[in-house]
């Protein structure tokens, strides 16, 4: 299986790499548009800040390439947020694959930001995140969230319900980190590889 992890200045590339290796998959880590375009599966990880990362994606041409990909594509955390239409983090237009806005959690009423830790998936209804994931706890670390909408395939609740996962055609996205979510997360990555 030719799995490519898109290389950019994201913090969790190594964790995703290790998680796939634990499943017996040896991913290629690359920023080369040709390598990415010819992959069977593409993973777009992300820990970092939206506006700076979008600028980087535009400079490198990845911002044009990514929405045109036809193979199964998985965006993780910031990767998911960058797949949306617009992020409040730096007020930046994003890749617009999933036409939802990315908003900041408001630290009000005792709500701590970032949302950090394990939270439950609810209303699971996707091809990747199907009903077998209902009630599973996954590991989240984020201060911004994707609103719920037509492409939401699972929600989690932190002050407000938000999109924990989304899908559109060959594009899949999780706000949580499957690479850090124990056996439930491993099961999800395995399922993505097998799609």
């Amino acid at each position, binding site marked *: 299986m030719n799995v490519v992890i898109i290389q950019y200045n994201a913090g969790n590339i190594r964790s995703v790499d290790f998680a796939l290796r634990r499943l017996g998959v040896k991913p290629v880590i690359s920023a080369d548009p040709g390598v990415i375009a010819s992959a069977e599966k593409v993973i777009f990880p992300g820990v970092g800040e939206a506006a700076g990362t979008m600028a980087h994606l535009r400079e490198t041409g990845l911002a044009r390439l990514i929405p045109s990909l036809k193979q199964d594509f998985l965006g993780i955390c910031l990767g998911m947020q960058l797949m949306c239409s617009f992020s409040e983090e730096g007020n930046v237009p994003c890749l617009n694959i999933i036409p939802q806005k990315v908003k900041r959690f408001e630290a009000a009423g005792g709500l701590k930001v970032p949302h950090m830790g394990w939270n439950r998936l609810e209303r699971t209804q996707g091809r990747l995140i199907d009903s077998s994931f209902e009630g599973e706890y996954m590991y989240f670390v984020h201060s911004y969230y994707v609103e719920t909408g037509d492409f939401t395939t699972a929600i989690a*609740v932190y002050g407000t319900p938000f999109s924990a996962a989304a899908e559109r055609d060959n594009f899949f996205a999780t706000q949580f980190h499957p690479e850090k979510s124990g056996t439930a997360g491993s099961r999800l990555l395995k399922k993505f590889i097998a799609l």
Partner: protein
Amino acid sequence: MLAKRIIPCLDIRDGKTVKGIEFLNIREVGEPVELGARYAREGADELVYLDITSSHEKRKLFAGLVRRIAENLNIPFTVGGGINDVSDAGRLLDAGADKISVNSAAIMQPELVSRMSAGFGSQFVVVAIDAREENGRWQVYRNGGRIPTGLDLFVWAYEVQERGAGEILFTSMNHDGVKHGYACDALARLSDRLNIPVIASGGAGAMEHFREVFTTGKADAALAASIFHYGEIGISQLKTYLAGENIPVRLNNDK
């Protein structure tokens, strides 16, 4: 709903797991990667590895260990001990650590917290604070609890939050190793004062102590070492108990 986290802490010296009892009398309890993986299987939500190696030379062993932990562990982990500058933190990030914790270095050089959170993101930076209650005031100590700093716990915790810390790991030196429960009053005050998560450390001796720290102590996570290492309380047993007490915890749900 966000679950309360249970975090076993593994003290590492010369690449092996040890636990200091009230910062003294260190003895070994196991191989760090193996022990961490076992805790993950039992339902630990996160792990903390603290390097207590004294010599600079042997500290290199730790970076290698961090990489092996990252390769093998499928839950998040924090590493701390001996992180004195941004490049130390960067090396541990590259080795695969999810978070680093800084303690004495942050006290000596508070702008380190700002620089690390700007460089790697707040989620990467845990500030560990050791403090002791003395005449009604919580004084911060550094260098493994050996040197009083004159800093007030609440003032210092607020400052590091404003500098971009993502979490506070507060150890009560009065409670650590005593096993009579966490410093719930101070923890609740911290939690009310801060808008970042607070990890409680020091004092766990029974399952009820975890219930107390998550209710009256308002902690987001609870860290413990010896009770887990010596098998006094099993993690899955603890989580089943907490769930029965209506505390939101992640129960193992293997499919």
